[in-house]
């Protein structure tokens, strides 16, 4: 057994249970939602919707209650400290937005609700397990758990060929990625004899301080570890949708039900980045191979490819999918920049990214629900005058993606870019900035469509109730409105008064290294 800091007088089981309470709460609620389906009277859509929200609320409550704890459970396989607090809250927010977006969407599509919501909750718990896992096996198990939920949810629209196709593509490619991940883990285990990340960390530390390879097992170790780390990176890069491993993203994002697209774009990406951040800072940082150069290439290609592809796409969901590939490239810059400043910047950007993405998807869902505007960007023509508030919110989220000041996107970009300059990656930052300028074009393209249609708005008139309030004839779902308002406020707040959020991220990054 490893030397674990003991929490006062708590035995092994209590401590272990404490470390996974937020996840447990979510899982319990997931089962409760699932059980609703047994009873005909209770199996209404609304019940599972509210129950899921309550579950997420409870989980947030537990996270906040435990927020100053530093717990190692299950022989150090699971960690819970400030780093997790930050990410748990972000993940739970992403889950909450997904649930909030789903209500009307489920109503319209007529799919069975309890299973859907319980899968979202299971997926959430898997993400939280992933973020708090500190053991290669744990990482693999939670990634698999999370992915399976995502595969099912992607193909949830029964009978829709696009959805099924998306799920199948996602599943097959995802299975490959998981195989790589597992293979990488095997290599690392073979080389170091440890599964615990901290143990691997100290093992590698010994090697690099020992200087000569002979002392600890020869050159073979380095080769094994390098191979392992590269394969592990492939597995994670798939989930982060970085450039050469991105090809599932547009199809899966496009085919999935839109709330699930949001779930994949925010939750899964966040969880994958978080675990990558932990593993990277613990393992990759040693001079075994120059991983920063690899990441450099991945970041540059992700940004450039994502932006070019987004420019060419005419479907809003595909556009957001490609833009999320580009955003992943920007976020990666923070990790490359490294150090306390860079990691904290990465976390800040991730948080900002969640709110802007969720907001944008909520707007897409609104228009999808109302059946008047399809996913084609052309159909967005003139909506700026019809729905001033929603269009203004959408513009704000798009400007945030583009990194215009006053939005969280600018602060996030500024944060990660300055961390990269600090570490001397000037070219990377320059390329990223040029990419941002380039990307602004297609974000602005949508705003142009919304506010400056070529001719007077041609989109079909609404139920002729002459509505001037910018709300679609009362049919708009409170959940969606709430999502948009929360995202709007937080995007603005993070862009203008980011200090509280920076402190939060700093706190979290600080604990990343406290072993």
């Amino acid at each position, binding site marked *: 057994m490893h030397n674990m800091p003991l929490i006062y007088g708590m035995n092994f089981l209590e401590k272990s249970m404490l470390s996974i309470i937020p996840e447990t709460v979510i899982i319990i609620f997931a089962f409760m939602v699932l059980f609703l389906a047994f009873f005909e009277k209770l199996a209404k859509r609304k019940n599972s919707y509210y129950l899921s929200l309550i579950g997420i609320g409870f989980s947030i409550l537990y996270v906040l209650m435990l927020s100053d704890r530093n717990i190692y459970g299950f022989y150090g396989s699971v960690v819970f400290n400030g780093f997790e607090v930050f990410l748990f809250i972000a993940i739970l927010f992403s889950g909450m937005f997904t649930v909030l977006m789903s209500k009307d969407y489920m109503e319209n599509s007529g799919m069975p609700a309890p299973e859907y919501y319980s899968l979202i909750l299971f997926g959430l718990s898997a993400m939280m397990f992933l973020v708090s896992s500190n053991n290669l096996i744990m990482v693999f198990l939670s990634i698999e758990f999370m992915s399976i939920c995502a595969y099912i949810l992607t193909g949830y629209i029964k009978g829709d060929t696009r959805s099924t196709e998306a799920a199948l593509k996602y599943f097959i490619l995802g299975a490959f990625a998981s195989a790589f991940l597992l293979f990488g883990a095997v290599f690392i285990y073979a080389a170091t004899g440890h599964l615990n990340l901290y143990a691997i960390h100290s093992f590698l530390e010994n090697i690099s301080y020992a200087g000569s390879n002979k002392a600890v097992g020869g050159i073979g170790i380095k080769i094994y570890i390098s191979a392992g780390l590269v394969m592990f990176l492939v597995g994670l890069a798939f989930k982060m949708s970085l450039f050469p491993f991105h090809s599932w993203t547009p199809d899966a994002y496009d085919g999935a039900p839109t709330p699930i697209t949001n779930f994949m774009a925010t939750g899964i990406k966040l969880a994958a980045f978080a675990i990558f951040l932990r593993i990277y800072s613990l393992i990759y940082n040693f001079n075994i191979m120059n991983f920063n150069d690899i990441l450099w290439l991945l970041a540059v290609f992700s940004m450039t490819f994502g932006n070019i592809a987004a420019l060419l796409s005419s479907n809003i969901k595909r556009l957001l999918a490609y833009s999320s590939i580009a955003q992943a490239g920007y976020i990666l810059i923070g990790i490359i920049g490294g150090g306390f400043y860079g990691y904290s910047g990465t976390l800040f950007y991730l948080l900002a990214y969640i709110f802007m993405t969720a907001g944008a998807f909520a707007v897409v869902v609104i228009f999808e629900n109302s059946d008047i505007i399809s996913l084609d960007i052309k159909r967005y023509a003139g909506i700026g*005058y019809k729905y001033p508030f929603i269009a203004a919110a959408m513009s704000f989220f798009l*400007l945030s993606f583009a990194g*215009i*000041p*006053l939005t969280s996107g*600018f602060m996030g970009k*500024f944060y990660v*870019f*300055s961390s990269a*300059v*600090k570490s001397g990656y*000037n070219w990377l*930052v*320059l390329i990223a*900035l*040029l990419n*941002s*300028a380039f990307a*602004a*074009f297609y974000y*602005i*393209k949508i705003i*142009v469509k919304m*506010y*400056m249609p*070529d001719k007077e708005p041609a989109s079909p008139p609404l139920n002729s109730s002459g509505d*001037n309030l910018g709300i679609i004839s009362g049919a708009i779902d409170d959940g969606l409105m709430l999502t948009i308002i929360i995202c709007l406020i937080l995007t603005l707040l993070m862009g203008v*008064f*980011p*200090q509280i959020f*920076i*402190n939060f991220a*700093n706190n979290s990054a600080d604990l990343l290294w406290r072993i």
Partner: protein
Amino acid sequence: MDFFIKHLLSVLIFFPVVSIFLLLPVNKKNEWLLRNLSTFLSLVEFIFSLYLFIYFRPNTYKFQFVEKFNWIPSFGASYFLGIDGVSLFLILLTTLLTFVSLLSSYRYIKTHVKEFVILMLLLETFMLGTFAALDVLLFYLFWEFMLIPMYFIIGMWGTGNRVYSAVKFVLYTLSGSLIMLFGLIYIFIMHYDQTGNFTFNILRLYNTHISDGLQLILFIALFLGFAIKIPLFPFHTWLPDAHTEAPTAGSVILAGVLLKFGVYGFFRFAIPLLPRAAFALAPFVIVLSVIGILYGAFVSIVQKDLKRLVAFSSVSHMGFIMLGLFAMSAISIDGSVIQLLNHGIATGALFLFVGMLYERMHTRQIKDFGGIAKKAPIFTAFFMISVLASVGLPGLNGFIGEFLILVGAFRSYPVLTIIGASGIIFAAVYLLWMFQRVMFQDVTNPAAENFEDMNLREIITILPLIILMFLIGFYPMPFLERIDPTVLHFLSAINHHKAVYNLIKLKTGLSNA
């Protein structure tokens, strides 16, 4: 009152936002109220800004009306405002032109009035913030967000190819600003490496030591951001499109205020942060400015579209201003700052007249006009004064600025100055010729037969600008005595570097020998 004066800059910056909240509940059908209320609020804003002028102490270079609060301690960014003699007048110009352009658009803006006035006021906030900010991050925040309201103003109320122009304008300036951001971040990080403190306080960043080679690279990064905004010669291509297609109010603000940000950026950021690079590249910039002067003038001569002509004349005038700034003598920089105001006033007025012509005749082609002078004497008189001010007739404001610039620049760059000075002659050619074709000659267009003269609202719109033309032309002292100390301090701060730069040049010259 004391509190008001102490926080005057914040009041000025945020009053338009407060105005927006006053305007929000107004029903969008009630256009009368929207127009008048917004104009009234911008007049109040202008009156507030006059307090700056009254309480501003002349004969000192120190920043006044300073406000400083912590904003983002993690980055060392603060809410740090303050003005000196240069930004004082630019702020006054901004508040005046916002009022003028709101008043001018009663007839021009017919649709979406509510959105229009809100965007104008929003724009005003960001313009004022940019001039008042002494914190680089704060400056950048204001600087870049300013694009968004301007983009909507061009794109939603423009004419012709408005969307193309708006997008071109945003993408051009955005690319420049992002490269500039790289330079600013780099300096910020260098300062951190040298002192161990994160700070965005511009006064502290001035002390960053940057090696000569690096200064050149960073200067180019900052140069791109500011030069596109000015716009300096090869970067000007967005300007004619944006100016031509924008609504009158947009053109007035664009020419009157937005172009000034580039010059202001050089004055406040690029040159003092990177003085040696500025000295090294000054001849290069001056050559570009002179090319801009001549190019703008030549292209103006052949323009058929009235608004495009005025737009290209801006390129020429901005060239003068950059010539004065980079000649780096006290007189020429004084002239540049005065000329910044002059250009805002005179070109703003010209755009207003073009707008009035367009409102009446629905055309901007010079050939469609003619013989208007007989129909509209007041219009002709005021238009004439504005044209002459723009040409640089002695007794009007343009003369003072151009004269100072040429006198100041002549010592260091005699040949280029003489070539540049010919731009004044060409200005007379294209402006007076244009005036002749538009106002005199025979009536060719039947629409000109019943050309209405200016009404009271239009006279009120234009009058403040005409008064300023005469005021600066006859008695520029109140302006110069506030600008001069700032400029002298600016020069003394960078002249130290000039000595070092000359020494290096001397040394390298010796080692080559």
